[in-house]
């Protein structure tokens, strides 16, 4: 008897509350979806991404949902040393292919095979995202691979012209180029960055062996 009286009341009450509650939940989900990549990159957190069914998205973007979409063409290629011909897809927009897996920038910098990642471009890609667990500092560039290559070129040109805010040091036949920029180009990641609250970075280091880029990173 009681159950019969209460059931319609509960049902109608639920129906009245549902739209507001659902809208609130949807708002929270949408806000989280937007904030999650930024928080992960900026604060070095590891918040899980919300899986969104999207048939047009590439396999590479699905494979690393917590990372910002910094450079899909480099993400898509396998990490083995023998597969770096796929670099050309990204590099061709700014770099000129001058040999087997060898690219030259407009300023004359050469990117070729080498490093633990198999190709210098693949190594640079490491500096497009934070590695919060990595001991010590890890300079992270704010932007895409294409923007990173352009800023490396711009910095190298400034240093070659001996502009203020640049310095060149020699070490064992290698050049260590230090370029200061007027505004931030990245932030400090790694364990040290995490400890210091990921402060912004305005300097770029480029290490060259003659005209070959060994590495470059904000610091």
């Amino acid at each position, binding site marked *: 008897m009681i159950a019969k009286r209460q059931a319609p009341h509960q049902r109608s009450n639920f129906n009245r509350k549902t739209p507001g509650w659902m809208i609130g939940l949807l708002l929270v989900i949408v806000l989280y979806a937007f904030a999650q990549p930024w928080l992960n990159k900026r604060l070095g957190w590891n918040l899980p991404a919300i899986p969104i069914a999207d048939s047009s998205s590439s396999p590479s973007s699905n494979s690393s949902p917590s990372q910002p979409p910094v450079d899909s063409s480099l993400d898509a290629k396998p990490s083995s040393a023998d597969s770096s011909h796929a670099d050309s897809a990204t590099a061709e927009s700014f770099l000129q292919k001058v040999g087997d897996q060898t690219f030259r920038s407009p300023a004359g910098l050469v990117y070729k095979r080498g490093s633990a990642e*198999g190709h210098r471009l693949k190594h640079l890609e490491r500096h497009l995202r934070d590695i919060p667990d990595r001991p*010590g500092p890890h300079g992270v560039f704010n932007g895409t691979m294409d923007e990173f290559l352009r800023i490396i070129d711009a910095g190298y040109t400034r240093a070659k012209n001996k502009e203020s805010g640049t310095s060149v040091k020699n070490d064992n*036949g290698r050049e260590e180029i230090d370029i200061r920029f007027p505004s931030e180009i990245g932030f400090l990641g790694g364990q040290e960055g995490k400890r210091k609250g990921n402060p912004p970075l305005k300097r770029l280091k480029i290490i060259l062996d003659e005209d070959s880029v*060994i590495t470059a990173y904000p610091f």
Partner: protein
Amino acid sequence: MTDKKLLYIRQCPICEQGLARPRICRSPATQMQEKKEPDQYIAGSNNPNSVAVVLCDECEAIWSDPTLNERIRTKADSDPACPQCHQSLWGPQSHWASLEEIYLLGWYNYIQVALLHTDSE
């Protein structure tokens, strides 16, 4: 996402960004010797002809031992090279030292271990 143990000695004193890490080079001659006498060697790690160096994973500076007192300046093209066989230390004959190899080298006391929760070293 996988957990990876990253074995390193210290932050690189040259670039102050990379990590100085033990790397083993097994020249083709060393590998042939191991094939001839497989019972003599534990996965190539105790072959006296293997060369161990310390290599910065960022600027690629090389040292002969974990004290980082003596720099090695061999290069193959623009890659860091093994002081014995002169092949690139990024070549297929070379690899980051395992804990077992570090122990056999007597470098264990210099080693720090970091646990990475990402797929990047």
